[in-house]
Structure formats: C-alpha cells, structure tokens
C-alpha cells in the first residue's frame, strides 16, 4: 500500500538504528505519548534495537485505557435500558467496568453494537426513530472532530433520538502533568502525529519552552518513528529545545483549521479524570451548553454514578511511564487480553497488550 510499505523498509530502518546508536552518548529517556506509536515500537522491537541509546518510556496515549471506570459503569447503565441501542468503537467493548464490560452486557441481552464511525451511529438513529441511539464518544483530539461532526449534524437535522456519552481527553495537559512530577526522568517527547494533524503543534512549542524539553512530531510507521527518534537524539545531543516535525506529509504547524473549528463549535475544555492517573485540570472536553440535549449523561441521568478504582492493577504507574508491563505481578498470569484486569491490557494500543502480543512471542521464539 502506498504511504505504508515504503515506510517499513528494513534496510533503511537498520541504517536509522545505526545512526541513532552512533549519535547517542547515553540512553536518553524519551516518551512516546501515543498508544499507536507504542504498538509500532514494540511490534517491530524498535525499543530493543535502540537499547543503550534511547530508553523508551511508554506514555498514557490510549484513550481507551484512560477512560475512567465510572464512565464505563455509566455506559453499562445506559446500555442496559430497553429503549437504547448503545454504539461504540470495537476496542471499548471489553474494557472492564467495576463489575462487567459491554460485551458481557450484550451477551445478556443489551443492544450493544460496534460501529466504525460516529456517523454510523447517527445513521442508526435516523433508521430507528423509535429507539434511543447512544454513541460512546471516546478519544483524543484526533477523534474529537468526527464526534463533534456527528453531534453537529444531529443538531442540524433535528435528530432527537441521538446522544453521545463523552469521554474525551487532551494530550498537552497530560504532558504538563507528567512534567510537573518532580521524579520524572523524561528528557524528550515523540509527539503524536495524528493528534497534531488535527491540532497542529503550537501548544507543544509552549510546553517545550516551559519545561526546557525538545519534541519531535512523528508518524506511526517504523521509519517515521526511527527518523523521529534520530531527530530527537540530535536535538538532545546538541542541547536544543525545539519542536521539530517529522510527519510533514500530514502535519502542519497550525493543524487542520476545518477540524479545529467544529471541535471549538461543539465542545469546550473541562476537567477530566484519567483512569489510573487521577484528575487532571482542563484535560478533557465536554459538550457546550447549546448541545447539552445531546449529552447522554443528562438524558439518562447517570452523571451521579461514581466509582473507586481497584488496587490490583498498576496501570497508573504504567500509564505514567514509571513501570513497564512486565513489572506488574499480574501480567500474563491473572491478567491477559482474554481476562483483562486493567484497561491497558484491552486495547491493542495499550502498553500491556502490546507487550503481551509481541514480547511473549519473541520469548517463545528465542
């Protein structure tokens, strides 16, 4: 496939690895924020190829993993209602709530359906005017324009039986929270290419200056990440505090103005709790007042459901890059993708699931 295969060329990848290893004078601790990037790094063993030159710390960048427990419980409470068709992206189906998950609720008769796009959920609402169609609007800045558009279209068309359960998180406030931690070892960041495709990277320039730390915006293929890391190591070795853009084929500094405008129209910034991490001020999105009627938490009066998290799972430390999945005593034992105890084991972009899929395989082959 064009724009995919050529970015997986093993010969060029080897050259980049050689370059980074030669250029680096110490194992620079750097974080990739985005779970999609974690997935590529682990899948291709890039973290291992760079051992000693770069220490990759996996960040909290999987919206599925950080969706708070109480949102899952609210989703379940809504999904169980007779009149509701509850729609969601596939990876939310198996995220454990405090007692069960959406897939199990479906097995017990709830009408839960997987959709590819929020527009598919809106289409279901048009087709079933007698039912209430709810979409679980989860995501980072990348997904916010799509979810905003579904709400905006429903509003324009007067679709009354459509609503969204919003659990949107923002990347820059999370970086800020990580950098405010006095124990942090992070010296540089790989910034998320698709979040920046939508939002641009001006916010990261502010962060770079406040925390004196370089950023490279990178794509998702192995060569993208290796080139991004090469650029980041160059910056670190030269002591330069800058934001550079490796993913120029998709990202420009201002982002996508059309996408940003609809997000601004429909959503506003709100405080948000991240599963495993806790509350981070101004780190999420909620619907603006004029779109409140589309808010499923109000429509179904579930906003009061609140939950404490269990203590077995060390997802919090993993999502903050303080521990690796293999440090968790439950990893691969009580906790596996078939029986996930925590969210990072559910989504294929969760760090625990990526380690489970690829590290165990490697160990078996070795």
């Amino acid at each position, binding site marked *: 496939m064009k*724009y995919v295969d050529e970015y997986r060329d093993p010969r060029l990848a080897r050259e980049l690895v050689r370059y980074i290893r030669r250029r680096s004078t110490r194992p620079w601790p750097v974080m990739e924020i985005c779970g999609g990037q974690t997935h590529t790094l682990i899948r291709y063993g890039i973290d291992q190829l760079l051992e000693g030159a770069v220490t990759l710390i996996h960040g909290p960048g999987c919206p599925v993993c950080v969706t708070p427990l109480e949102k899952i419980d609210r989703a379940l409470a809504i999904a169980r209602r007779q009149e509701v068709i509850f729609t969601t992206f596939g990876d939310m189906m198996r995220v454990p709530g405090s007692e069960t998950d959406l897939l199990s609720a479906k097995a017990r008769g709830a009408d839960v359906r997987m959709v590819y796009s929020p527009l598919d959920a809106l289409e279901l609402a048009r087709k079933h005017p007698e039912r209430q169609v709810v979409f679980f609007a989860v995501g*980072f800045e990348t997904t916010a324009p799509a979810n905003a558009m579904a709400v905006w279209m429903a509003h324009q068309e007067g679709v009354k039986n459509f609503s969204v359960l919003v659990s949107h998180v923002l990347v820059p406030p999370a970086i800020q929270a990580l950098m405010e931690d006095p124990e942090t070892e992070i010296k540089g960041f790989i910034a998320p290419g698709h979040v920046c495709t939508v939002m641009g990277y001006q916010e990261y320039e502010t962060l770079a200056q406040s925390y004196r730390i370089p950023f490279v915006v990178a794509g998702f293929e192995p*060569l993208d990440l290796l080139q991004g890391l090469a650029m980041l190591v160059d910056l670190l070795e030269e002591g330069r505090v800058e934001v550079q853009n490796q993913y*120029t084929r*998709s990202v420009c500094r201002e982002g*996508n103005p059309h*996408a940003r405008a609809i997000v601004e129209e429909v959503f506003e910034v709100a405080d948000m709790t991240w599963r495993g991490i806790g509350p981070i001020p101004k780190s999420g999105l909620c619907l603006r007042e004029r779109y409140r009627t589309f808010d499923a938490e109000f429509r179904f009066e579930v906003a009061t459901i609140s939950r404490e998290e269990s203590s077995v799972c060390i997802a919090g430390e993993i999502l903050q890059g303080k521990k690796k999945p293999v440090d968790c005593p439950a990893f691969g034992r009580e906790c596996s993708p078939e029986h996930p105890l925590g969210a990072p084991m559910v989504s294929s972009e969760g760090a625990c699931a990526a380690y489970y899929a690829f590290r165990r395989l490697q160990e078996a082959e070795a």
Partner: protein
Amino acid sequence: MCLGVPGKVVEVSNNALGLPQGKVQFGGVVKEVNFCYTPDVQVGDYVVVHVGFAISKIDEREAQRVFDFLQRMGDLEGLDMPEESQ
C-alpha cells in the same frame, strides 16, 4: 485509537446536507469517507482517514522527505568512514 490509514480518493460528491464526501480506496477495500475537513480533495489525492473522516491530505513532496533525510544520512556516513578506519 488514533489510527489513521492512508488511502486514495476515488470519488468526490456531496451528501444531503451539502457536505463533501466520497470514496477512498485502501489496498483492495473501498470505504465511504467524509471530506468536511479536507474540502479541496480531488480524485487521485491521498488522504489520512480516521473513523470515517479524512483528517489530512497527504503532501506528496513532503512524503519524500524521509527518504531525502536517509540519503543525506548515507552521505554523512560515507564521510565518516575514513575516520573510523583510522
């Protein structure tokens, strides 16, 4: 979750609300895609698609830059060689 897949635009039209939409081909698969965020796309362009929306038009010239970078790096390595063998 933030998966964005590059594909080739094969059809551009407008939906009932007058919003730009069309079809994008990914390898052998063709999907309906909303072009609200890339209103200037044309058939033959490549776009990055996320949950049914094109979020960017791929810049062909910029796409080449990774390989230019590698080329330059290769040239530099060439210069490094004699030093190493000393």
